[in-house]
């Protein structure tokens, strides 16, 4: 059936133009493969299923392999189909689920070797934070207007520098990394634990958050991932926990300043968004009790912990109580460049560990040491260890297993996943102690994942749309700014979702008239090589068409073949089929 479809297309093409003829010549490998994989593949598959050993004996046709590539990666790149056919679907999945074995291209490692990703949150604060920039900008330590202007400029530049380095690395990896599933899951978990670059100090830490808290655990244990996010400076700042203080603690009583009482923001989202889910059975009382457990978990003084404190005397006093000078005050006095700042950092390394990649700091003087009761579990007041206890409790809850499983099933299979699939994944979660690779392995071998109804049934998010366009055309990003602009225009600015629930992953959220036309505008400009900052290295429409494979409709193919030559890639990338995956 496929073979006849191809031949008919090829015949039609021949009738139209010489260029179409060349397409017809280029199409056959894929088409021939369809033909070879046609009815035989199907009968083999059925046999494998009935024998109950689907995973060993199953074979896959091109349509299925492309479907798998669409979901496990950010979309097939030229050559991916052939590679998977050579190595086999099983071997490919195994490789993707164990990314440590995958060699990264040197070029990519270079792009990712930038301070925004490699330095600790404290180091980033001490190098690019306001006090450091102020020390450099205001040589005399005065507040005259020229110095203020200079400082504003330095702040803007440091924001842009860190943001663009982080975004360049993220997009380059998403497009080029051979460890695609690792990148897909990094995007998934970043959204799950979303923070925004536009919340004050988080502009310093978004890259570190992704690099130190998310990416290393993206296919590991959920408990480790949860722990890393809970101890990362960026999360503690974003959801305000760095100020969460017991009102009866020595730091709150009779003092002025920001550490005066409970802030339940992080406690609520930790249960609602990160673990149990909104229907996970917790109460307002549980939120309040969890907020008490989390009191004191914040940022090191001098490296973010005094953010925005406009009372230098109080700041100095607080810092002195910890047995060290106030970093930002020192910086201002010294009015030195970066090197000086690092020396100061090294001298301080005794108390809070400024090189810690996560960058949290537990201040027991702000902690509530009373007994707590959370979800029926009694937590005795022991300080920092209480936090580890509750994170373990939360990670082990069946409600958490279900919540995470639902999100994975929705992301990888269908906007409305079946209860059976969610249950299957939740069981795997509980059996494997929240082993993300194990859960995904179950998902990738589920009947629902391979169901023909699932193929091309998801609507791409703007991020996936951009990345898959680049992958299908061997696109390379020379200047990251225009790509970031497209993501903003399409409603998905990178690292800038303001709310902690992250971006949605459903057609309902992303399919609307303006958004669709803006994708088409991008596809048109990019396809003809006139989109700034990125170039499609692959100019052969037939090879791009191969990435879409058999889901490409006659109508689309007809339009592409009869269109002017320079429009063909644009039309393929702007086609209804390419909006889906």
């Amino acid at each position, binding site marked *: 059936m496929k073979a006849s479809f191809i031949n008919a297309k090829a015949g039609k093409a021949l009738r139209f133009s010489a260029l179409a003829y060349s397409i017809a010549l280029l199409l056959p490998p894929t088409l021939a493969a369809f033909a070879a994989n046609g009815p035989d593949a199907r009968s083999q598959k059925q046999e494998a299923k009935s024998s109950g050993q689907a995973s060993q004996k199953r074979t896959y046709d091109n349509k299925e392999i492309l479907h798998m590539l669409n979901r496990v990666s950010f979309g097939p790149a030229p050559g991916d189909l052939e590679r998977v056919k050579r190595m086999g679907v099983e071997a490919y999945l195994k490789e993707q689920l164990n990314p440590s074995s995958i060699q990264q291209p040197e070029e990519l490692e270079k792009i990712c070797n930038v301070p925004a990703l490699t330095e600790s949150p404290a180091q980033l604060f001490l190098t690019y934070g306001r006090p450091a920039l102020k020390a450099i900008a205001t040589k005399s330590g005065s507040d005259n207007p020229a110095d203020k202007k200079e400082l504003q400029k330095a702040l803007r530049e440091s924001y842009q520098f860190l943001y663009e380095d982080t975004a360049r690395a993220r997009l380059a990896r998403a497009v080029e990394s051979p460890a695609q599933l690792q990148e897909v899951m990094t995007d998934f978990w970043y959204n799950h634990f979303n923070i925004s670059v536009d919340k004050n100090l988080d502009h310093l830490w978004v890259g570190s958050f992704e690099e130190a808290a998310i990416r290393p655990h993206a296919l590991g244990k959920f408990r480790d991932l949860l722990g890393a996010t809970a101890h990362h400076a960026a999360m503690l700042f974003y959801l305000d926990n760095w100020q969460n203080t017991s009102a009866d603690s020595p730091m709150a009583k009779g003092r002025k300043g920001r550490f005066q009482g409970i802030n339940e923001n992080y406690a609520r989202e930790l249960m609602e968004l990160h673990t149990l889910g909104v229907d996970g059975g917790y109460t307002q009382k549980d939120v309040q009790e969890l907020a008490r457990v989390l009191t004191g978990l914040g940022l090191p003084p001098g490296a973010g912990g005094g953010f925005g404190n406009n009372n230098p005397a109080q700041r100095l006093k607080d810092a002195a109580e910890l047995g060290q000078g106030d970093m930002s005050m020192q910086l201002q006095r010294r009015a030195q460049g970066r090197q000086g700042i690092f020396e100061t950092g090294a001298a301080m390394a005794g108390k809070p560990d400024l090189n810690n990649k996560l960058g949290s700091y537990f201040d027991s003087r702000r902690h509530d040491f009373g007994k707590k009761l959370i979800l029926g579990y009694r937590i005795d007041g022991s300080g920092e260890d209480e936090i580890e206890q509750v994170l373990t409790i939360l990670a082990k809850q069946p409600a958490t297993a279900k919540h995470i499983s639902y999100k994975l099933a929705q992301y990888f299979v269908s906007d409305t996943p079946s209860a059976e699939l969610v249950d299957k994944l939740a069981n795997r979660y509980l059996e494997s102690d929240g082993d993300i690779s194990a859960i995904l392995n179950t998902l990738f071998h589920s009947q629902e994942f391979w169901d023909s109804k699932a193929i091309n049934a998801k609507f791409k998010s703007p991020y996936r749309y951009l990345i898959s366009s680049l992958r299908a055309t061997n696109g390379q990003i020379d200047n990251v700014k225009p790509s970031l602009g497209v993501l903003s225009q399409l409603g998905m600015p990178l690292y800038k979702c303001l*709310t902690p629930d992250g971006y949605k992953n459903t057609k309902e959220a992303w399919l609307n008239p303006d958004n669709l036309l803006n994708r088409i505008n991008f596809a048109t400009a990019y396809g003809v090589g006139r989109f700034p900052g990125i170039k499609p290295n692959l100019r052969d429409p037939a090879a791009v068409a191969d990435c879409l494979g058999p889901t490409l409709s006659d109508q689309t193919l007809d339009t592409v073949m009869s*269109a002017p030559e320079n429009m063909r890639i644009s039309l393929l990338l702007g086609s209804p089929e390419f909006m889906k995956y």
Partner: protein
Amino acid sequence: MNRREFLKAAGMATASCFLPGFQAWAVESNSKTSSNKKLVVVFLRGAIDGLNVVVPHGDPAYYSMRQKIALQAPGSPGTALALDRDFALHPSLAALMPLWQKKKLAFVLNAGSPDPTRSHFDAQDYMETGMPGNKVASTGWMQRLLAQMPDNHSPVRAINVGSTTPRILAGPIAAATYAPSAKRRRAPIDRADISSEFQQMYKGRNDDLEHAFLEGIAARNTINTALAGDEMNAEMQAANGGALAANKFGGFGKQLGKLMHDEAKVQVAFVALGGFDTHVNQGNEKGQLANQLNVLGTGLSELSAALGPSFDDTTIMVISEFGRTAKENGNGGTDHGHGNLIWLLGGDINGGKLYGRWNGMSQKELYEGRDLPVSTDFRSVISSVIGEHLRLSQSQLEAIFPGFKFTDKSLSSIIV
């Protein structure tokens, strides 16, 4: 029958079963009475602190619970602006005072959702579907409202300012979406040769992508025409060069107002503004919330002005998912609460008044001892307003808010 017609028919099922041709007749009748009536909904995401918008300065409990963030009683320069004896408006909303004085602005106190959730995302969903507690509702109440309004076949019947489809407009009738921006550049799809290639590829598929594509092309032409003109761009840029630059929605009012003024067929519009989740350092007369209110107040005032004579036919409703704690928290902010304000502006609003039930802020009056109660269901407020403003029948209101019995007639005088 296409899906749009089906949706409309479903809402009128009781009558249409025995009255052939009823649908057409109803549309005709509606178009006579309410063809020019418009509704704008502004959603303040993140739960705005209503207690610092309309300030109950007459209540001593307000001051004892909010030592850092309370606003002072009206009287001195820079303090809140008196609305009546006990309540005053945040000074950053000074731009709205002329509307209050002209009796075109009203507030409903202690309104909200009967659902107790303090989750932003659930509460927003409930307020947008109009079905609190229902987790599977897939269409929004503005979408169901559109189905009850006469179909004027305009691609810009519904306007959504933003980049994504909000739940409130989710459903088969596509909303024309545009992102607020200073410049609307000519794009590839505005070229006839490119557009026709894509038309050939999208047309006739009979699916949601074709639908979106065609609606998009039609809406784009209309919006491009309406928002063209250098005068507009210059104005917008001036606005962005000023204090509003910090907020990307600065200027939303002018653009939307101009569009609705020039394009008579706009029936509903939706704008969502973020940044109201003030857990930390929210400030009082000055500060974080004050800055946000400045943008909002200016936007609403500019929207009202840009509507011109259409303001008389327009109701603007400002809602937020829930209120915030009556007491300030440990960080000069407020946490998630329950009851909140609903703001109403428009030509036929019986304004200059505060509506709703207010029993003060003493401990025994607070919901769960910490939040303002919800004394008026948000659906009662919306039903009271749109029922009169858009001339909708009880059964039409029931189609918009399925399962909700609109019996609270305490707001029946809210529309002139």
